């Protein structure tokens, strides 16, 4: 049995693929931006020394780290509206869930990097009269963020791929569009291969750059 490839019929829908790719990029970057903010806030709560804040942050983190992203998406889109008695836009549900999900992981990456900085750094900052805030922002964070960078990039690459799950709540991302094209052309092999290729084309340069960054950081340490 020989299969005759026919990318031509699939490629007629290139604008759908491109639009889907754009949506994927928007949700990835958007959720990374929100996730960084959530991650920092959660990390600050974890390091605050207040038992209440620490508990809230931990409960949030464990809920989002210990349930599959797919389950979270379904819950926020189908279950959450019943709880609050108002419908929720699928795009809002998607962005919210993706951000909360990645924020829980970012918080752990930031926290791990901050506590890994030698406590002598904090002491040296304190010894010249720096306030805890000055010490954190000028001495600890610059070093910690450098140390967190490889794990941060790695998590963000995973996030790019995870975004494909929003298609299950009908957000028209790349994965959703590939399914649409398949429905039009009955060409699953071509439709889904092209989709896979587009993911690789987006992420390969990023993983290569991440490896390079990691090597550079190791040299400078």
């Amino acid at each position, binding site marked *: 049995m020989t299969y005759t490839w026919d990318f031509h019929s699939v490629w007629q829908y290139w604008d759908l693929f491109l639009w889907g790719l754009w949506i994927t990029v928007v949700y990835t970057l958007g959720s990374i931006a929100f996730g960084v903010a959530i991650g920092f806030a959660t990390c600050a709560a974890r390091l605050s020394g207040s038992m209440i804040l620490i508990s809230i942050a931990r409960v949030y983190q464990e809920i989002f780290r210990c349930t599959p992203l797919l389950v979270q998406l379904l819950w926020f889109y189908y279950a959450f509206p019943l709880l609050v008695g108002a419908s929720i836009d699928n795009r809002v549900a998607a962005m919210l869930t993706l951000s909360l999900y990645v924020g829980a992981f970012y918080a752990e990456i930031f926290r791990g990097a901050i506590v890994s900085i030698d406590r002598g750094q904090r002491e040296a900052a304190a*010894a*010249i009269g720096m306030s805890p805030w000055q010490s954190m922002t000028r001495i600890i964070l610059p070093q910690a963020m450098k140390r967190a960078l490889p794990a941060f990039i790695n998590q963000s690459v995973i996030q790019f791929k995870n975004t494909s799950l929003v298609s299950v709540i009908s957000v028209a991302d790349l994965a959703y569009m590939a399914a649409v094209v398949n429905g039009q052309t009955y060409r699953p092999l071509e439709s889904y291969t092209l989709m896979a290729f587009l993911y690789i084309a987006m992420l390969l340069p990023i993983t290569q750059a991440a490896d390079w960054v990691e090597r550079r950081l190791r040299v400078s340490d």
Partner: protein
Amino acid sequence: MERMQHMSKNTDPGEAVIEAIGLHKSYGPIEVLKGLDLKLERGEVVALIGPSGSGKSTFIRCLNMMEIPTDGTIRFRQKPIGKSFRDKGAHLGIGTLRRHVGMVFQHFNLFPHKTVLENVTEGPIVVCGRPKREAEALAMELLNQVGLAEKHAAYPNHLSGGQKQRVAIARALAMEPEVLLLDEVTSALDPELVGEVLAVIRNLAENGMTMAIVTHEMAFAADVASRVIFLDQGVIAETGTPEDVILNPQNPRLQGFVARFKG
């Protein structure tokens, strides 16, 4: 050097700059400091000696509130230090204390993401709000004094241990402290690099800097200190001139300790 002389002119011997009164420190059930008193007068150099684990570091770290004492008081310029960072009422804040009391660590603790010059200017600019240009001029003067002016653009990782420690001293001096606390600042150095750091400290002593120095360098302590304190199991077991404490120790535990380090 000029700065140092200027500082020594201001010294007013007899006045206590920093003082510890009835200092206790416990970690959980373990009492590490069991009621210590110390009065450091202007221009005085006190050497703290004692076996490992006797509480030397804990003691010196209480003086700038790096460790919060369980009981007792630290006074700076006759004023008690409170437990908050800012000044409150009759109490000086920890922030104010640390602006005027410098500390140098065994492991240098230089900021690796900042150049040598930035390490030294960080305090004056960020903590004291001095203009950058002025802070840099002061920093270059201090780096010159510790013999490292030509390394001002280097990052700490490119320096030897002895050079790092001299930068750390310059960083502390940039705050123009009234007291300098040094905790085993040569213990992490290769033997051949100890001398260059001790020379810098000796120079500071000669120029009237008030210092508390934790050290195992007995010859250096005997030479540079005006007073030597022997700490043993969390109490001051002996205090006196270098001649009394290091050269002619009476207390048997002190005799044993000094004999081991004279080697």
